């Protein structure tokens, strides 16, 4: 990776981190667990990396197997994470 590409990525990192810090201010205690669970589902974005890793062909079978392992795990995180968060939030509405 050349320096200019890296600098752009660091820009993105710094601005998104700052936004993340500012985004959460006052959260009612009942929402602590759903917020944790919902952002946990977002961290499953690594599924994008897993897809790319699974698609690497012809160089190393080990790489592909690791990519597939990552893909199964990341999908569990994403699908399970969103589903369980929605279930929790649905409960709150009924009360």
């Amino acid at each position: 990776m050349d320096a200019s590409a890296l600098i752009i990525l660091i820009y993105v990192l710094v601005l998104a981190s700052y936004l993340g810090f500012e985004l959460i201010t006052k959260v009612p205690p009942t929402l602590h667990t759903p917020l944790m669970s919902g952002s946990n589902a977002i961290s499953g974005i690594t599924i994008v990396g897993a897809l790319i890793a699974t698609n690497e062909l012809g160089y190393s079978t080990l790489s592909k197997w690791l990519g597939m392992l990552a893909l199964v795990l990341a999908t569990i995180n994403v699908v399970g994470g969103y589903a369980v968060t929605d279930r929790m939030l649905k409960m709150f509405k009924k009360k």
Partner: protein
Amino acid sequence: MSNLVQIAYLISSILFILGIKFLGKTKDARKGNVLSAVGMLLAIVATLVNLNLATFPEMLACVLLGGVIGLYYARKVEMTKIPEMVALFNGFGGLASFAVALSDFFLKSQLIEGLDTVNLISIILSILIGGVTFTGSMVAFLKLDGKVSGQPITFKGQHLINLMLLIVFVVAAVLVFLNPGNPLFIAVLVVIALVLGILTVIPIGGADMPVVISLLNSYSGMAACATGFILNNNVLIVAGSLVGASGIILTQIMCKAMNRSLVNVLLGGFGQTVSGP
């Protein structure tokens, strides 16, 4: 990468931001979760469009398997057991980032252009953070599930051992830089990262567990972010650092609600200091 894919990633990023924002408000929380799920779907579709899809059958099999497992447990779990479930899912996310980093290491170490400095640093960080997230979350899961004692497990020199392991990790990381072709040093990094996750979570117990899960959630975001640097991918960096940063703030809010400082939680021993006679 085509411009269309980049635009899709940008829209995904905006949906994640709105999703986290709404999840913190009682009225809009459910909408927030849906928005972020749509963002995730968009990021996945955009990624698939950009790949040559030679391994589409494998991908489909993995996604179906993971999707069925995730949906099954998300539906089946009792409401009181949800924190354990979040810990478990979170651990899987950490392990996924860890596996992507290793996959990329083994791939690029066989290519002629090889691994550059940015690749190596991000792979090492992803292994460390992803590994700690995985084993740490598993310990948190086992503790909450009652399979391991929920009480803090402390022993003498605990923090010293952690520090020494971290130093060995740094030394091994330098050796990886000097000999990127030697898998032995990467193996050392892998083992230390996994052990550190166990050792940092076992001294924590009792009512502190939700705080730790929140912190581990923040770590899994950072691991995804490191993976973004490996793959030069913006959406991974944005979503990962959003979760990493907002996770730390949420952890602090949770600590404050319990009148605990984050340092106290991390040093462990909740039951011993507070429970009393």
